[in-house]
């Protein structure tokens, strides 16, 4: 039996790191195992459907494996888009039992019918909420990986759908100063972040029956997940929105209405990515750039907290800022026209004791201030580091020209998964793996980090 090995090609000026090769293979194997025929589940047991921002991140990873699959991932997600432009945060796999995940398809019913009232295509089961708009960023990343430039068919297919999603956000979710609101913590992607503790405190929490509904605790430790009180509030907020027919009129009268700096910063970045896509299709990109710059300016004027040195969320019902340091407040590093003073403040916060990025003990970007008295290092978005938000900060650093700090952050994230595997999240000090295993976006985005690293090594002069 052959023992011959394929010859390893040495990249110019560097050496193949065996661990990197192993990690890359493991990442690809993780994505392959989580593929479900037309999209990727975040992880096999805990999340058996398609999630919106997960899919965007995952498609960035697929682009390094098969651009065909990357496009398919996004196209299948947009197959669940509503007529009103809303891109649902969950598109359900109808072959999975309806009670495998809570909330399942019945929770969201009745969805508005397809047509003028704006629901999904009949027969497609979705939620009625959205998630952070990272999809145009992902589409541009995939297009850049296609041999010979963008794949016009896929880009042409996705462009109007991406634009419709952004139109929905800019038109239906706008609150004061042109800022964009999220109407549920699930919409921020960071369900139990301390950034909305105040806004949530006013929401009724009827915990009767909540424990029985939850499916997440079958797969993950109670101390690592949102509490029953959190879940009771999530259910109340979602049910209220549903019972209003998912109408976005008078957003302030909903039980939850928050301006999240990460959501807004991602919309700016995605809107600019969409402008780039429009340019490539030789379509007019003007309105995308205009909206992006207006939103960016509003963020810098109204969401920056100079005393804390980062952006903060605002409870839009009472227009009250929530003055805590969370990773969401650092993602505006992605703003292309960020004020110099604000950028320096963000960088200083990032490397300071609250997040420790770039230091020898850095472990990705913690989701919450490491010096906060209510830091909870095991619980979901109340302390642990996540690959997704770390990757967004990494992109922000590169955008600012902070390549050295970006490289240190990239290395710390790669080290996290090299030690603990492609976990859902990680202890922000010890790096212990937490939550689900074989988590798709952890694998996908590490593929992107590794690719960027090897591209830099190849580009380095001998």
């Amino acid at each position, binding site marked *: 039996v*052959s023992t011959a090995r*394929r010859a390893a090609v040495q990249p110019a000026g560097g050496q193949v790191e065996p661990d990197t090769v192993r990690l890359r*293979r493991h990442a690809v194997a993780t994505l*392959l*195992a989580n*593929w479900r025929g037309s999209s990727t589940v975040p992880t096999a047991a805990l999340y058996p459907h398609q999630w919106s921002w997960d899919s965007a991140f995952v498609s960035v990873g697929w682009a390094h*494996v098969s651009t*065909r699959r990357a496009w398919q991932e996004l196209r299948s997600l947009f197959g669940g888009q509503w007529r009103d432009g809303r891109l649902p945060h969950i598109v359900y796999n109808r072959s999975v039992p309806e009670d495998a995940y809570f909330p399942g398809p019945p929770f969201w019913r009745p969805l508005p019918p397809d047509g003028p009232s704006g629901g999904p295509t009949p027969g497609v089961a979705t939620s009625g909420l959205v998630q952070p708009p990272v999809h145009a960023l992902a589409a541009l990343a995939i297009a850049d990986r296609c041999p010979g430039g963008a794949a016009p068919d896929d880009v042409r297919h996705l462009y109007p759908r991406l634009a419709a999603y952004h139109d929905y956000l800019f038109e239906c979710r706008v609150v004061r100063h042109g800022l964009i609101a999220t109407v549920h913590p699930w919409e921020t992607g960071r369900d139990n972040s301390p950034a909305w503790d105040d806004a949530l405190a006013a929401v009724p929490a009827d915990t009767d029956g909540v424990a029985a509904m939850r499916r997440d605790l079958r797969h993950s430790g109670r101390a690592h997940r949102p509490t029953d009180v959190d879940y009771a509030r999530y259910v109340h907020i979602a049910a209220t929105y549903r019972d209003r027919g998912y109408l976005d009129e008078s957003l302030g009268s909903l039980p939850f209405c928050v301006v999240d700096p990460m959501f807004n910063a991602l919309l700016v970045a995605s809107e600019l990515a969409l402008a780039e896509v429009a340019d490539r299709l030789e379509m007019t990109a003007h309105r995308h750039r205009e909206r992006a710059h207006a939103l960016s300016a509003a963020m810098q004027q109204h969401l920056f907290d100079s005393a804390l040195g980062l952006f903060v969320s605002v409870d839009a019902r009472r227009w009250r800022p929530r003055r805590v340091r969370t990773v969401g407040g650092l993602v505006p590093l992605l703003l292309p026209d960020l004020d110099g003073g604000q950028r320096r403040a963000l960088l200083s916060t990032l490397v300071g004791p609250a997040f420790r990025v770039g230091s020898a003990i850095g472990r990705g970007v913690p989701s919450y201030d490491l010096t906060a008295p209510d830091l909870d290092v095991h619980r979901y978005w109340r302390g642990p580091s996540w690959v997704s938000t770390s990757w967004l900060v990494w992109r922000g650093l590169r955008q600012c020209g902070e390549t050295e700090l970006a490289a240190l952050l990239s290395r710390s994230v790669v080290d996290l998964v090299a030690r603990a595997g492609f976990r859902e999240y990680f202890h922000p000090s010890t790096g212990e793996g937490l939550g689900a295993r074989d988590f798709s976006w952890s694998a996908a985005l590490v593929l992107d980090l590794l690719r960027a690293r090897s591209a830099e090594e190849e580009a380095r002069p001998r």
Partner: protein
Amino acid sequence: VSRWRIACQEQLLPGSTLLDKWTFAEKAGFDGIELRARGDFGFEARLPELREARAYAVSMPSECVEMSHFIGAFDEALRKDAVRQVASQISVMAAIGGEVAVTPAAYGMFSRRLPPFEPPRGPEDDRQVLLDSLGELGEHARAEGVAICLEPLNRYEDHMVNTLDAAAQLCRDLDLPSVRVAADTYHMNIEEADPAAALLGVSAWLGHVQLSDSNRLEPGAGHVDWALLLAALDAAHYDGWLALECRLSGPPEVALPAAVSRLRQASR
């Protein structure tokens, strides 16, 4: 970053001698030639030719049977002959420094999708026959330092072993490191719900890979996702050969270099 070792079956290469074919193959970007092994000890009869080619450093890592009866034949005398032939082919490969011998369970003998639909032998007997044949060949291959690889064929060409997992199950039952699975992307396109996941699923037993597009033409002429398949092979830690077994969409001077180039691009 890895460089795949890609071979081409000999009948696809222009030239009258193996050396001519090799000169063309190398220029087209191939790393080896996959030989076709006839019955009646026809392959053994080629030993002088093969030895001469080897002396000229022609790379011949693998061979694939080209016979009218196979190791899963219904007829016991034919089955025994097939085992004898394949054993001889394995020895020839050992003699010329080759690594892999490939055989299906059978080809063109029976299909459950075509009349009369019910084969004369049941699945349990099929399995026993294949275990007997592969067990004997596996011991011989181990002694010769060669791998015997069982290639699943699609449902219209064979009724016994259609999927990678079915082949791997026989490997698991035998548990001989010299008995492995040969994956052919053409048959996989028909039989595997998720070809990339299927490759990953048999990674422990994968010994050889044959490449053909969805339409039996060279890679790139159909709709197989080559980037995905090669990434899956890499993720499966596969470090063996990829051999083109297909027909060509045009003259070999055009089709073959283009196919190799597409495969190399797809694994960038």
